[in-house]
Protein backbone atom coordinates (compact mmCIF):
# COMPACT_ATOMS: atom_id res chain seq x y z
CA UNK A 1 0.00 0.00 0.00
CA UNK A 2 1.26 3.48 -0.82
CA UNK A 3 1.03 6.86 0.89
CA UNK A 4 -1.93 7.54 3.09
CA UNK A 5 -3.23 10.67 1.42
CA UNK A 6 -3.15 9.17 -2.05
CA UNK A 7 -5.00 6.07 -0.98
CA UNK A 8 -7.54 7.92 1.11
CA UNK A 9 -8.56 10.01 -1.84
CA UNK A 10 -8.52 7.06 -4.17
CA UNK A 11 -12.15 6.13 -4.85
CA UNK A 12 -11.18 2.60 -5.90
CA UNK A 13 -9.75 1.95 -2.47
CA UNK A 14 -12.75 3.46 -0.72
CA UNK A 15 -14.93 1.27 -2.88
CA UNK A 16 -12.83 -1.77 -2.05
CA UNK A 17 -13.22 -1.08 1.65
CA UNK A 18 -16.93 -0.66 1.18
CA UNK A 19 -17.14 -3.95 -0.70
CA UNK A 20 -15.05 -5.78 1.86
CA UNK A 21 -17.23 -4.38 4.56
CA UNK A 22 -20.44 -5.45 2.89
CA UNK A 23 -19.02 -8.93 2.40
CA UNK A 24 -18.14 -9.16 6.07
CA UNK A 25 -21.01 -7.23 7.62
CA UNK A 26 -23.39 -10.13 8.16
CA UNK A 27 -20.65 -12.31 9.57
CA UNK A 28 -19.48 -9.61 11.94
CA UNK A 29 -23.00 -8.77 13.13
CA UNK A 30 -23.78 -12.45 13.63
CA UNK A 31 -20.58 -13.00 15.61
CA UNK A 32 -21.29 -9.92 17.73
CA UNK A 33 -24.90 -10.88 18.47
CA UNK A 34 -23.61 -14.24 19.58
CA UNK A 35 -21.04 -12.59 21.85
CA UNK A 36 -22.95 -9.64 23.29
CA UNK A 37 -26.48 -11.05 23.06
CA UNK A 38 -27.98 -7.71 22.02
CA UNK A 39 -28.89 -6.91 18.44
CA UNK A 40 -28.80 -3.12 18.68
CA UNK A 41 -25.44 -3.07 20.40
CA UNK A 42 -24.04 -5.58 17.90
CA UNK A 43 -25.23 -3.55 14.93
CA UNK A 44 -23.95 -0.24 16.32
CA UNK A 45 -20.56 -1.66 17.19
CA UNK A 46 -20.07 -3.24 13.78
CA UNK A 47 -21.05 0.11 12.26
CA UNK A 48 -18.42 1.78 14.45
CA UNK A 49 -15.90 -0.82 13.34
CA UNK A 50 -16.62 0.19 9.77
CA UNK A 51 -15.83 3.82 10.57
CA UNK A 52 -12.51 2.69 12.06
CA UNK A 53 -11.84 0.48 9.04
CA UNK A 54 -12.56 3.31 6.61
CA UNK A 55 -10.08 5.44 8.51
CA UNK A 56 -7.34 2.87 8.93
CA UNK A 57 -7.44 0.43 6.06
CA UNK A 58 -6.65 2.91 3.31
CA UNK A 59 -3.75 4.17 5.46
CA UNK A 60 -2.40 0.99 7.03
CA UNK A 61 -3.62 -1.61 4.59
CA UNK A 62 -6.36 -4.20 4.86
CA UNK A 63 -5.85 -6.78 7.62
CA UNK A 64 -5.17 -10.33 6.51
CA UNK A 65 -8.52 -11.46 7.92
CA UNK A 66 -10.82 -8.45 7.60
CA UNK A 67 -13.76 -10.32 9.11
CA UNK A 68 -11.91 -11.32 12.25
CA UNK A 69 -10.53 -7.78 12.52
CA UNK A 70 -14.00 -6.24 12.33
CA UNK A 71 -15.33 -8.66 14.92
CA UNK A 72 -12.43 -7.92 17.27
CA UNK A 73 -12.79 -4.14 16.92
CA UNK A 74 -16.57 -4.31 17.29
CA UNK A 75 -16.31 -6.58 20.32
CA UNK A 76 -13.84 -4.24 22.04
CA UNK A 77 -16.17 -1.39 21.30
CA UNK A 78 -19.09 -3.34 22.84
CA UNK A 79 -17.07 -4.03 25.95
CA UNK A 80 -16.14 -0.34 26.26
CA UNK A 81 -19.76 0.64 25.88
CA UNK A 82 -20.77 -1.88 28.49
CA UNK A 83 -18.19 -0.64 30.95
CA UNK A 84 -19.48 2.90 30.64
CA UNK A 85 -23.18 2.23 30.38
CA UNK A 86 -25.03 1.01 33.46
CA UNK A 87 -28.24 0.45 31.50
CA UNK A 88 -26.49 -1.90 29.09
CA UNK A 89 -25.08 -3.87 32.00
CA UNK A 90 -28.60 -4.47 33.26
CA UNK A 91 -30.15 -5.32 29.91
CA UNK A 92 -27.22 -7.47 28.73
CA UNK A 93 -26.25 -9.39 31.84
CA UNK A 94 -24.66 -12.15 29.75
CA UNK A 95 -21.74 -10.11 28.44
CA UNK A 96 -21.50 -8.07 31.62
CA UNK A 97 -20.79 -11.23 33.57
CA UNK A 98 -18.26 -12.29 30.98
CA UNK A 99 -16.21 -9.12 31.00
CA UNK A 100 -16.17 -8.81 34.74
CA UNK A 101 -14.68 -12.29 34.80
CA UNK A 102 -12.18 -11.64 32.07
CA UNK A 103 -9.25 -9.30 32.34
CA UNK A 104 -9.16 -7.59 29.02
CA UNK A 105 -5.90 -6.00 28.00
CA UNK A 106 -6.90 -2.51 26.93
CA UNK A 107 -3.80 -2.17 24.81
CA UNK A 108 -4.55 -5.18 22.66
CA UNK A 109 -4.87 -3.10 19.56
CA UNK A 110 -7.23 -4.56 17.00
CA UNK A 111 -4.45 -4.20 14.45
CA UNK A 112 -2.64 -7.03 16.16
CA UNK A 113 -3.20 -10.42 14.60
CA UNK A 114 -6.42 -11.81 15.97
CA UNK A 115 -7.81 -15.29 15.78
CA UNK A 116 -8.83 -16.09 12.24
CA UNK A 117 -11.20 -18.76 13.41
CA UNK A 118 -14.24 -16.60 14.04
CA UNK A 119 -17.01 -19.18 13.85
CA UNK A 120 -19.50 -18.38 11.15
CA UNK A 121 -22.71 -17.49 12.92
CA UNK A 122 -24.60 -16.27 9.87
CA UNK A 123 -26.94 -19.26 9.79
CA UNK A 124 -28.18 -18.36 13.25
CA UNK A 125 -28.68 -14.80 12.06
CA UNK A 126 -30.58 -15.94 8.97
CA UNK A 127 -32.96 -18.11 10.99
CA UNK A 128 -33.51 -15.38 13.58
CA UNK A 129 -34.17 -12.69 10.95
CA UNK A 130 -36.57 -14.98 9.09
CA UNK A 131 -38.41 -16.22 12.17
CA UNK A 132 -42.12 -16.63 11.41
CA UNK A 133 -42.95 -14.68 14.58
CA UNK A 134 -41.74 -11.55 12.76
CA UNK A 135 -43.89 -9.78 10.18
CA UNK A 136 -42.80 -10.67 6.63
CA UNK A 137 -41.77 -7.10 5.81
CA UNK A 138 -39.71 -7.02 9.00
CA UNK A 139 -38.02 -10.30 8.04
CA UNK A 140 -37.01 -8.86 4.70
CA UNK A 141 -35.82 -5.58 6.20
CA UNK A 142 -33.77 -7.28 8.92
CA UNK A 143 -32.22 -9.70 6.46
CA UNK A 144 -31.13 -6.93 4.12
CA UNK A 145 -29.90 -4.66 6.89
CA UNK A 146 -28.09 -7.13 9.12
CA UNK A 147 -27.02 -9.89 6.74
CA UNK A 148 -26.66 -7.81 3.63
CA UNK A 149 -25.20 -4.73 5.28
CA UNK A 150 -27.52 -2.40 3.37
CA UNK A 151 -28.07 0.88 5.18
CA UNK A 152 -31.51 1.66 6.57
CA UNK A 153 -31.82 4.33 3.88
CA UNK A 154 -31.03 1.79 1.15
CA UNK A 155 -33.57 -0.70 2.48
CA UNK A 156 -36.18 2.07 2.73
CA UNK A 157 -35.42 3.15 -0.81
CA UNK A 158 -35.76 -0.40 -2.09
CA UNK A 159 -39.23 -0.75 -0.61
CA UNK A 160 -40.35 2.78 -1.43
CA UNK A 161 -41.04 3.78 2.16
CA UNK A 162 -39.67 6.81 4.02
CA UNK A 163 -36.42 6.14 5.86
CA UNK A 164 -38.09 6.95 9.22
CA UNK A 165 -40.72 4.29 8.54
CA UNK A 166 -38.07 1.70 7.75
CA UNK A 167 -36.01 2.70 10.80
CA UNK A 168 -39.08 2.22 12.97
CA UNK A 169 -39.85 -1.12 11.35
CA UNK A 170 -36.31 -2.33 12.11
CA UNK A 171 -36.40 -0.98 15.66
CA UNK A 172 -39.70 -2.69 16.37
CA UNK A 173 -38.51 -5.97 14.93
CA UNK A 174 -35.39 -5.88 17.08
CA UNK A 175 -37.48 -4.99 20.13
CA UNK A 176 -39.65 -8.01 19.48
CA UNK A 177 -36.62 -10.26 19.03
CA UNK A 178 -35.33 -9.04 22.38
CA UNK A 179 -38.58 -9.08 24.36
CA UNK A 180 -40.04 -12.29 22.95
CA UNK A 181 -36.57 -13.91 22.88
CA UNK A 182 -36.55 -15.07 19.34
CA UNK A 183 -33.65 -17.49 19.60
CA UNK A 184 -30.34 -16.91 17.89
CA UNK A 185 -29.77 -20.45 16.73
CA UNK A 186 -30.31 -22.92 13.94
CA UNK A 187 -33.65 -24.69 14.48
CA UNK A 188 -33.56 -28.36 15.49
CA UNK A 189 -33.88 -30.98 12.75
CA UNK A 190 -37.63 -31.50 13.16
CA UNK A 191 -38.32 -27.80 12.64
CA UNK A 192 -35.56 -27.16 10.12
CA UNK A 193 -37.30 -27.87 6.78
CA UNK A 194 -40.20 -25.49 7.48
CA UNK A 195 -37.94 -22.79 8.89
CA UNK A 196 -35.44 -23.13 6.06
CA UNK A 197 -38.26 -22.77 3.57
CA UNK A 198 -39.35 -19.58 5.34
CA UNK A 199 -35.81 -18.21 5.11
CA UNK A 200 -35.54 -19.09 1.43
CA UNK A 201 -38.91 -17.41 0.84
CA UNK A 202 -37.54 -14.19 2.31
CA UNK A 203 -34.57 -14.27 -0.04
CA UNK A 204 -36.83 -15.06 -2.97
CA UNK A 205 -39.01 -12.09 -2.00
CA UNK A 206 -35.98 -9.81 -2.00
CA UNK A 207 -35.07 -11.05 -5.47
CA UNK A 208 -38.61 -10.65 -6.81
CA UNK A 209 -38.75 -7.12 -5.48
CA UNK A 210 -35.62 -6.39 -7.48
CA UNK A 211 -36.72 -8.35 -10.55
CA UNK A 212 -40.20 -6.84 -10.90
CA UNK A 213 -40.12 -4.30 -13.65
CA UNK A 214 -42.84 -2.30 -11.96
CA UNK A 215 -41.34 -0.25 -9.17
CA UNK A 216 -38.23 1.57 -8.01
CA UNK A 217 -35.17 2.66 -9.94
CA UNK A 218 -33.02 0.26 -11.91
CA UNK A 219 -29.98 0.58 -9.66
CA UNK A 220 -31.85 -0.29 -6.48
CA UNK A 221 -33.57 -3.21 -8.20
CA UNK A 222 -30.24 -4.55 -9.38
CA UNK A 223 -28.83 -4.23 -5.85
CA UNK A 224 -31.72 -6.27 -4.47
CA UNK A 225 -31.26 -9.04 -7.03
CA UNK A 226 -27.51 -9.15 -6.42
CA UNK A 227 -28.09 -9.19 -2.67
CA UNK A 228 -30.60 -12.03 -2.90
CA UNK A 229 -28.17 -14.06 -5.01
CA UNK A 230 -25.37 -13.35 -2.55
CA UNK A 231 -27.55 -14.39 0.42
CA UNK A 232 -28.58 -17.58 -1.34
CA UNK A 233 -24.90 -18.30 -1.96
CA UNK A 234 -24.13 -17.69 1.73
CA UNK A 235 -26.73 -20.24 2.82
CA UNK A 236 -25.55 -22.66 0.15
CA UNK A 237 -22.01 -22.29 1.47
CA UNK A 238 -23.19 -22.95 5.02
CA UNK A 239 -25.67 -25.75 4.12
CA UNK A 240 -24.07 -27.28 1.02
CA UNK A 241 -26.20 -30.42 1.02
CA UNK A 242 -29.66 -28.87 1.28
CA UNK A 243 -31.22 -29.31 -2.18
CA UNK A 244 -33.72 -26.51 -1.72
CA UNK A 245 -30.94 -24.04 -0.96
CA UNK A 246 -29.09 -25.02 -4.14
CA UNK A 247 -32.41 -24.90 -5.96
CA UNK A 248 -33.06 -21.33 -4.86
CA UNK A 249 -29.54 -20.28 -5.82
CA UNK A 250 -29.93 -21.88 -9.26
CA UNK A 251 -33.38 -20.37 -9.72
CA UNK A 252 -32.20 -16.84 -8.94
CA UNK A 253 -29.08 -17.17 -11.11
CA UNK A 254 -31.07 -18.51 -14.06
CA UNK A 255 -33.55 -15.64 -13.87
CA UNK A 256 -30.91 -13.00 -13.31
CA UNK A 257 -28.98 -14.31 -16.32
CA UNK A 258 -31.84 -13.10 -18.54
CA UNK A 259 -32.11 -9.67 -16.93
CA UNK A 260 -30.48 -7.68 -19.77
CA UNK A 261 -32.72 -9.20 -22.41
CA UNK A 262 -35.98 -8.81 -20.51
CA UNK A 263 -36.56 -5.17 -21.29
CA UNK A 264 -35.98 -3.40 -24.60
CA UNK A 265 -34.44 0.03 -25.16
CA UNK A 266 -37.75 1.74 -24.50
CA UNK A 267 -38.26 -0.11 -21.21
CA UNK A 268 -40.93 -2.41 -22.63
CA UNK A 269 -41.02 -5.97 -21.38
CA UNK A 270 -39.77 -8.55 -23.87
CA UNK A 271 -41.36 -11.99 -23.73
CA UNK A 272 -39.08 -14.93 -23.10
CA UNK A 273 -39.66 -16.26 -26.60
CA UNK A 274 -38.70 -12.91 -28.14
CA UNK A 275 -35.60 -12.26 -26.07
CA UNK A 276 -32.17 -11.96 -27.67
CA UNK A 277 -30.57 -15.05 -26.17
CA UNK A 278 -27.14 -13.74 -27.06
CA UNK A 279 -27.58 -11.22 -24.27
CA UNK A 280 -28.17 -13.85 -21.64
CA UNK A 281 -25.35 -14.36 -19.15
CA UNK A 282 -23.89 -17.71 -20.25
CA UNK A 283 -21.63 -18.07 -17.20
CA UNK A 284 -24.54 -17.54 -14.80
CA UNK A 285 -26.64 -20.06 -16.76
CA UNK A 286 -23.81 -22.58 -16.58
CA UNK A 287 -23.60 -22.16 -12.80
CA UNK A 288 -27.37 -22.37 -12.43
CA UNK A 289 -27.46 -25.54 -14.53
CA UNK A 290 -24.78 -27.26 -12.46
CA UNK A 291 -26.44 -26.23 -9.19
CA UNK A 292 -29.86 -27.42 -10.33
CA UNK A 293 -28.43 -30.74 -11.53
CA UNK A 294 -26.71 -31.29 -8.20
CA UNK A 295 -29.88 -30.35 -6.30
CA UNK A 296 -31.92 -32.81 -8.38
CA UNK A 297 -29.44 -35.58 -7.53
CA UNK A 298 -29.65 -34.90 -3.78
CA UNK A 299 -33.12 -36.30 -3.34
CA UNK A 300 -36.80 -35.80 -4.09
CA UNK A 301 -37.01 -32.25 -5.42
CA UNK A 302 -38.85 -29.54 -3.50
CA UNK A 303 -40.46 -26.34 -4.66
CA UNK A 304 -37.27 -24.40 -5.37
CA UNK A 305 -35.44 -27.29 -7.05
CA UNK A 306 -38.35 -27.82 -9.46
CA UNK A 307 -38.65 -24.12 -10.22
CA UNK A 308 -34.90 -24.05 -10.82
CA UNK A 309 -35.17 -27.05 -13.13
CA UNK A 310 -37.78 -25.17 -15.15
CA UNK A 311 -35.77 -21.95 -15.27
CA UNK A 312 -32.67 -23.88 -16.31
CA UNK A 313 -34.58 -25.65 -19.11
CA UNK A 314 -35.58 -22.25 -20.50
CA UNK A 315 -32.13 -20.82 -20.06
CA UNK A 316 -30.45 -23.68 -21.93
CA UNK A 317 -32.73 -23.61 -24.99
CA UNK A 318 -30.68 -22.17 -27.85
CA UNK A 319 -33.83 -20.76 -29.43
CA UNK A 320 -37.38 -20.44 -28.14
CA UNK A 321 -38.37 -23.24 -30.55
CA UNK A 322 -35.73 -25.52 -29.02
CA UNK A 323 -37.32 -25.31 -25.58
CA UNK A 324 -38.05 -28.78 -24.23
CA UNK A 325 -41.62 -27.98 -23.24
CA UNK A 326 -42.48 -31.59 -22.48
CA UNK A 327 -39.82 -31.63 -19.77
CA UNK A 328 -41.04 -28.29 -18.44
CA UNK A 329 -44.62 -29.58 -18.34
CA UNK A 330 -43.30 -32.57 -16.40
CA UNK A 331 -41.60 -30.35 -13.82
CA UNK A 332 -44.80 -28.32 -13.45
CA UNK A 333 -46.74 -31.54 -12.90
CA UNK A 334 -44.35 -32.44 -10.05
CA UNK A 335 -44.68 -28.92 -8.63
CA UNK A 336 -48.46 -29.26 -8.71
CA UNK A 337 -48.16 -32.61 -6.95
CA UNK A 338 -46.22 -30.99 -4.08
CA UNK A 339 -48.98 -28.50 -3.33
CA UNK A 340 -52.11 -27.74 -5.33
CA UNK A 341 -51.74 -24.27 -6.81
CA UNK A 342 -53.85 -22.87 -9.65
CA UNK A 343 -51.01 -20.65 -10.86
CA UNK A 344 -48.74 -23.69 -11.18
CA UNK A 345 -51.56 -25.46 -13.04
CA UNK A 346 -51.84 -22.48 -15.36
CA UNK A 347 -48.12 -22.57 -16.15
CA UNK A 348 -48.36 -26.31 -16.62
CA UNK A 349 -51.18 -25.84 -19.13
CA UNK A 350 -49.14 -23.27 -21.02
CA UNK A 351 -46.22 -25.71 -21.17
CA UNK A 352 -48.55 -28.42 -22.46
CA UNK A 353 -49.76 -26.02 -25.15
CA UNK A 354 -46.20 -25.15 -26.10
CA UNK A 355 -45.37 -28.86 -26.25
CA UNK A 356 -48.03 -29.08 -28.94
CA UNK A 357 -51.37 -29.97 -27.41
CA UNK A 358 -53.22 -26.66 -27.49
CA UNK A 359 -56.79 -28.03 -27.11
CA UNK A 360 -55.85 -30.06 -24.03
CA UNK A 361 -54.10 -27.03 -22.58
CA UNK A 362 -57.11 -24.80 -23.18
CA UNK A 363 -59.37 -27.31 -21.43
CA UNK A 364 -57.02 -27.26 -18.43
CA UNK A 365 -56.96 -23.46 -18.40
CA UNK A 366 -60.76 -23.20 -18.64
CA UNK A 367 -61.01 -25.45 -15.60
CA UNK A 368 -59.05 -22.82 -13.62
CA UNK A 369 -61.48 -19.97 -14.41
CA UNK A 370 -63.03 -20.04 -10.94
CA UNK A 371 -59.73 -19.72 -9.11
CA UNK A 372 -57.99 -17.27 -11.44
CA UNK A 373 -60.83 -15.07 -12.71
CA UNK A 374 -59.05 -11.94 -11.42
CA UNK A 375 -55.53 -12.85 -12.48
CA UNK A 376 -54.50 -11.02 -15.66
CA UNK A 377 -52.07 -13.73 -16.72
CA UNK A 378 -54.90 -16.28 -16.74
CA UNK A 379 -56.77 -14.25 -19.35
CA UNK A 380 -53.59 -13.44 -21.25
CA UNK A 381 -52.59 -17.12 -21.44
CA UNK A 382 -56.11 -18.10 -22.44
CA UNK A 383 -56.12 -15.39 -25.10
CA UNK A 384 -52.84 -16.67 -26.54
CA UNK A 385 -54.22 -20.20 -26.84
CA UNK A 386 -57.50 -19.02 -28.35
CA UNK A 387 -55.52 -17.01 -30.87
CA UNK A 388 -53.45 -20.05 -31.76
CA UNK A 389 -56.67 -21.98 -32.32
CA UNK A 390 -57.92 -19.21 -34.62
CA UNK A 391 -60.70 -18.10 -32.27
CA UNK A 392 -59.81 -14.43 -32.73
CA UNK A 393 -63.05 -13.03 -31.36
CA UNK A 394 -62.80 -14.94 -28.09
CA UNK A 395 -59.06 -14.18 -27.96
CA UNK A 396 -59.74 -10.44 -28.29
CA UNK A 397 -62.26 -10.61 -25.43
CA UNK A 398 -59.74 -12.41 -23.25
CA UNK A 399 -56.97 -9.90 -24.08
CA UNK A 400 -59.31 -7.06 -23.15
CA UNK A 401 -60.13 -8.75 -19.86
CA UNK A 402 -56.40 -9.19 -19.18
CA UNK A 403 -55.75 -5.53 -20.00
CA UNK A 404 -58.33 -4.35 -17.48
CA UNK A 405 -56.63 -6.46 -14.77
CA UNK A 406 -52.93 -5.94 -15.46
CA UNK A 407 -51.07 -3.51 -13.16
CA UNK A 408 -47.69 -3.33 -14.82
CA UNK A 409 -47.36 -0.76 -17.64
CA UNK A 410 -44.85 -2.82 -19.64
CA UNK A 411 -47.08 -5.87 -19.50
CA UNK A 412 -50.11 -3.81 -20.43
CA UNK A 413 -48.30 -2.47 -23.50
CA UNK A 414 -47.50 -6.03 -24.53
CA UNK A 415 -51.12 -7.15 -24.18
CA UNK A 416 -52.29 -4.12 -26.15
CA UNK A 417 -49.85 -4.99 -28.93
CA UNK A 418 -51.27 -8.52 -29.02
CA UNK A 419 -54.81 -7.22 -29.16
CA UNK A 420 -53.88 -4.82 -31.96
CA UNK A 421 -52.26 -7.70 -33.88
CA UNK A 422 -55.51 -9.65 -33.81
CA UNK A 423 -57.50 -6.58 -34.78
CA UNK A 424 -55.00 -5.88 -37.56
CA UNK A 425 -55.23 -9.43 -38.84
CA UNK A 426 -59.01 -9.23 -38.87
CA UNK A 427 -58.98 -5.85 -40.61
CA UNK A 428 -56.73 -7.29 -43.29
CA UNK A 429 -59.43 -9.93 -43.70
CA UNK A 430 -56.90 -12.70 -43.72
CA UNK A 431 -58.80 -15.86 -43.10
CA UNK A 432 -57.06 -18.42 -40.90
CA UNK A 433 -55.79 -21.35 -42.86
Amino acid at each position, binding site marked *: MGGASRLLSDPVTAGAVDRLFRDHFGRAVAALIRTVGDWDLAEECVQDALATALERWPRDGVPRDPGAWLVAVARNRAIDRLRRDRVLR*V*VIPQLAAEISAEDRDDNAAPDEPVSTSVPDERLRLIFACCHP*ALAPEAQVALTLRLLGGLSTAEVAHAFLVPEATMAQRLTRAKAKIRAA*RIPFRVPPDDALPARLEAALDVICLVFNEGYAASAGDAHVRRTLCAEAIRLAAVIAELMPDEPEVLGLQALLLAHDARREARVDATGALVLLEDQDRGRWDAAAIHRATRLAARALRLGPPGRYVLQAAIAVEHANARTAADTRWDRIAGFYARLAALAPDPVVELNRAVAIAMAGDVPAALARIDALAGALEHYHYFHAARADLLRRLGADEAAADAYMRAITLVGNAAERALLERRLAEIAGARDAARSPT
Partner: protein
Amino acid sequence: MKVLLTLYGDETIKGVDSPQDIARTMQAWGEFGEAARAAGVLLVCDALEASHTATTVRVDGGTRHVTDGPFIETKEQLGGVILLEVRDLDEALEWAARTPWNFDGCSTEIRPVMDYDAYAARAGIAWEEPAAS
Protein backbone atom coordinates in the same frame (compact mmCIF):
# COMPACT_ATOMS: atom_id res chain seq x y z
CA MET B 1 -38.12 -15.95 30.76
CA LYS B 2 -41.77 -16.14 31.68
CA VAL B 3 -44.35 -16.27 28.91
CA LEU B 4 -48.11 -16.09 29.18
CA LEU B 5 -50.11 -18.18 26.76
CA THR B 6 -53.67 -16.98 26.39
CA LEU B 7 -56.02 -19.44 24.73
CA TYR B 8 -58.82 -18.12 22.57
CA GLY B 9 -61.58 -19.95 20.80
CA ASP B 10 -65.21 -20.10 19.84
CA GLU B 11 -67.18 -21.00 22.94
CA THR B 12 -70.27 -21.76 20.94
CA ILE B 13 -68.67 -24.77 19.25
CA LYS B 14 -70.64 -27.85 20.19
CA GLY B 15 -69.40 -31.37 20.39
CA VAL B 16 -67.47 -31.40 23.66
CA ASP B 17 -70.57 -31.75 25.78
CA SER B 18 -70.84 -35.46 26.40
CA PRO B 19 -69.33 -36.82 29.62
CA GLN B 20 -66.93 -38.89 27.52
CA ASP B 21 -65.77 -35.80 25.62
CA ILE B 22 -65.26 -33.86 28.80
CA ALA B 23 -63.39 -36.74 30.41
CA ARG B 24 -61.16 -37.05 27.35
CA THR B 25 -60.48 -33.29 27.30
CA MET B 26 -59.64 -33.20 30.99
CA GLN B 27 -57.35 -36.17 30.63
CA ALA B 28 -55.52 -34.54 27.72
CA TRP B 29 -55.00 -31.36 29.76
CA GLY B 30 -53.86 -33.42 32.70
CA GLU B 31 -51.25 -35.11 30.51
CA PHE B 32 -50.08 -31.79 29.16
CA GLY B 33 -49.77 -30.35 32.66
CA GLU B 34 -47.84 -33.39 33.83
CA ALA B 35 -45.40 -33.22 30.93
CA ALA B 36 -44.85 -29.49 31.34
CA ARG B 37 -44.41 -29.81 35.08
CA ALA B 38 -41.97 -32.70 34.63
CA ALA B 39 -39.96 -30.53 32.21
CA GLY B 40 -39.86 -27.80 34.83
CA VAL B 41 -41.56 -25.17 32.65
CA LEU B 42 -45.08 -25.03 34.08
CA LEU B 43 -46.03 -22.25 36.48
CA VAL B 44 -49.78 -21.93 35.88
CA CYS B 45 -52.26 -23.77 33.70
CA ASP B 46 -55.92 -22.96 34.16
CA ALA B 47 -59.12 -22.91 32.18
CA LEU B 48 -61.68 -20.15 32.57
CA GLU B 49 -65.42 -20.43 33.04
CA ALA B 50 -67.42 -19.35 29.99
CA SER B 51 -67.40 -15.66 29.06
CA HIS B 52 -71.04 -15.16 30.07
CA THR B 53 -69.82 -15.49 33.67
CA ALA B 54 -67.45 -12.54 33.23
CA THR B 55 -67.89 -9.15 34.89
CA THR B 56 -66.18 -6.08 33.47
CA VAL B 57 -65.34 -2.88 35.29
CA ARG B 58 -64.78 0.17 33.12
CA VAL B 59 -63.60 3.56 34.30
CA ASP B 60 -65.06 6.42 32.33
CA GLY B 61 -65.12 10.07 33.33
CA GLY B 62 -63.86 9.14 36.76
CA THR B 63 -66.73 6.74 37.37
CA ARG B 64 -66.48 3.00 37.64
CA HIS B 65 -69.08 1.12 35.65
CA VAL B 66 -69.67 -2.52 36.48
CA THR B 67 -71.21 -4.46 33.64
CA ASP B 68 -72.11 -8.04 32.88
CA GLY B 69 -70.08 -9.86 30.26
CA PRO B 70 -66.53 -9.94 28.88
CA PHE B 71 -64.29 -7.00 27.96
CA ILE B 72 -64.98 -7.52 24.27
CA GLU B 73 -68.07 -9.24 22.92
CA THR B 74 -66.65 -11.40 20.18
CA LYS B 75 -66.97 -14.91 18.92
CA GLU B 76 -63.44 -15.78 19.98
CA GLN B 77 -63.23 -15.63 23.75
CA LEU B 78 -60.44 -16.14 26.23
CA GLY B 79 -60.77 -19.67 27.51
CA GLY B 80 -57.63 -20.32 29.49
CA VAL B 81 -54.18 -19.17 30.53
CA ILE B 82 -50.84 -20.91 30.82
CA LEU B 83 -47.78 -19.36 32.41
CA LEU B 84 -44.48 -20.97 31.46
CA GLU B 85 -40.85 -20.48 32.32
CA VAL B 86 -38.96 -21.11 29.08
CA ARG B 87 -35.62 -20.43 27.43
CA ASP B 88 -36.91 -18.61 24.37
CA LEU B 89 -39.81 -18.15 21.96
CA ASP B 90 -39.16 -21.44 20.18
CA GLU B 91 -39.52 -23.38 23.41
CA ALA B 92 -42.77 -21.50 24.12
CA LEU B 93 -43.97 -22.39 20.62
CA GLU B 94 -43.12 -26.06 21.20
CA TRP B 95 -45.19 -26.16 24.38
CA ALA B 96 -48.01 -24.24 22.72
CA ALA B 97 -48.08 -26.95 20.06
CA ARG B 98 -48.30 -29.64 22.75
CA THR B 99 -51.41 -28.28 24.47
CA PRO B 100 -54.73 -29.93 23.63
CA TRP B 101 -55.77 -26.45 22.41
CA ASN B 102 -55.09 -27.49 18.85
CA PHE B 103 -58.38 -28.05 17.05
CA ASP B 104 -59.60 -25.87 14.17
CA GLY B 105 -60.43 -22.34 15.25
CA CYS B 106 -58.16 -22.36 18.30
CA SER B 107 -55.73 -19.48 18.77
CA THR B 108 -52.96 -19.24 21.31
CA GLU B 109 -51.31 -15.89 21.90
CA ILE B 110 -47.82 -15.97 23.37
CA ARG B 111 -46.67 -12.88 25.25
CA PRO B 112 -43.43 -12.39 27.13
CA VAL B 113 -43.86 -11.33 30.72
CA MET B 114 -42.10 -8.04 31.29
CA ASP B 115 -38.54 -8.05 32.60
CA TYR B 116 -38.79 -5.26 35.19
CA ASP B 117 -35.03 -4.84 35.58
CA ALA B 118 -34.50 -4.21 31.88
CA TYR B 119 -37.63 -2.07 31.64
CA ALA B 120 -36.57 0.16 34.50
CA ALA B 121 -32.98 0.36 33.26
CA ARG B 122 -34.06 1.47 29.79
CA ALA B 123 -36.41 4.03 31.32
CA GLY B 124 -33.49 5.28 33.39
CA ILE B 125 -35.19 4.80 36.75
CA ALA B 126 -33.91 3.10 39.85
CA TRP B 127 -35.96 0.06 40.69
CA GLU B 128 -35.50 -2.83 43.00
CA GLU B 129 -37.68 -5.83 43.30
CA PRO B 130 -39.52 -5.76 46.62
CA ALA B 131 -38.23 -8.48 48.89
CA ALA B 132 -40.58 -11.44 49.00
CA SER B 133 -42.36 -11.61 52.32
